[in-house]
């Protein structure tokens, strides 16, 4: 994942710790390592003395790391690369870093070079961005509507749940008759419930929404059985609901 900038040199970069690690290590030659959700810059680089700087993400559980450098990006570099390096502001968005101990002049870099490495903040086509995680009815920004709100795989002969999402329990009402109860109620009843079964034998076992009760926001009742013959318990029942 590459960095997505704010408007350098003013302020903000976005990226994973590894992104930032690679970027700064390449251009500033400051030892650094990724630690959990942070990037830590060390102090033992040859010829350079830098404070240890911790970049905290504002949302530790979010894989995107946000760095806000007060005073602008060039000021940031000036503040922390001073004792053994010469910093020259080249332009509004670039700074030349020259390490005095580096006779080979290999440790200089331009912020403009860094900026040139940063891709457009526009994500690639098809990316799922935060605004798309809405339940908007607009097709272009409704990724959430394409994700199952409920799914469950259970044993219809015991109503034992093998695994599920957003299911609190299965109610065994009778032979071939179960209710899937949702942990969190859905926002409406116009959902699409898809159900399949594996029968106890190789025959025309099927699954349907019962007419005994209508689907509700908190549950859906399922009937399974041998088509045209009788309701029957099935060892595998799968239910998936989209809304």
């Amino acid at each position, binding site marked *: 994942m590459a960095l997505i900038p704010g408007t350098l040199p003013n302020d903000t970069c976005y990226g994973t710790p590894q992104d930032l690690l690679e970027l700064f290590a390449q251009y500033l030659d400051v030892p650094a390592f990724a630690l959990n959700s942070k990037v830590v810059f060390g102090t033992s680089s040859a010829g350079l003395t830098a404070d240890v700087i911790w970049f905290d993400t504002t949302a530790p559980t979010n894989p995107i790391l946000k760095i806000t450098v007060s005073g602008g990006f060039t000021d940031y570099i000036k503040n922390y690369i001073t004792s053994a390096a010469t910093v020259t502001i080249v332009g509004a968005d670039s700074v030349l870093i020259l390490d005095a101990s580096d006779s080979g002049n290999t440790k200089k870099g331009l912020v403009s070079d860094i900026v040139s490495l940063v891709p457009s903040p526009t994500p690639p086509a098809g990316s799922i961005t935060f605004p798309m995680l809405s339940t908007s009815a607009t097709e272009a920004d409704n990724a959430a509507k394409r994700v199952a709100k409920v799914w469950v795989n259970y044993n219809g002969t015991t109503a034992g*749940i093998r695994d*599920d999402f957003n*299911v609190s*329990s299965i109610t065994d*009402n009778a032979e071939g008759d179960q*209710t899937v109860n949702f942990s969190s109620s859905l926002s409406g009843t116009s959902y699409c419930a898809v159900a399949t079964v594996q029968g106890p034998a190789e025959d025309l076992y099927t699954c349907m929404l019962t007419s005994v009760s209508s689907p509700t926001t908190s549950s859906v009742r399922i009937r399974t059985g041998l088509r045209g013959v009788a309701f029957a*318990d099935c060892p595998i029942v799968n239910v998936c609901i989209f809304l």
Partner: protein
Amino acid sequence: MNKRIIYPKTESGVSIVIPSPNWKGTIEELAIKDVPTGLPYKIVDVSDIPSDRTFRNAWEYTE
């Protein structure tokens, strides 16, 4: 969770609530949530539920 919730069906017979292994609440909280409002219920051990389902539709709820 080795507990089950049983309650009488409105159509006759008995319903048995089996908790999800992912359910984080108590069996009592589950009963309040998943037993239809107004119906009596009981919390029983798994071992109290017959394993032979031959006559499942004839099972009845008793106080």
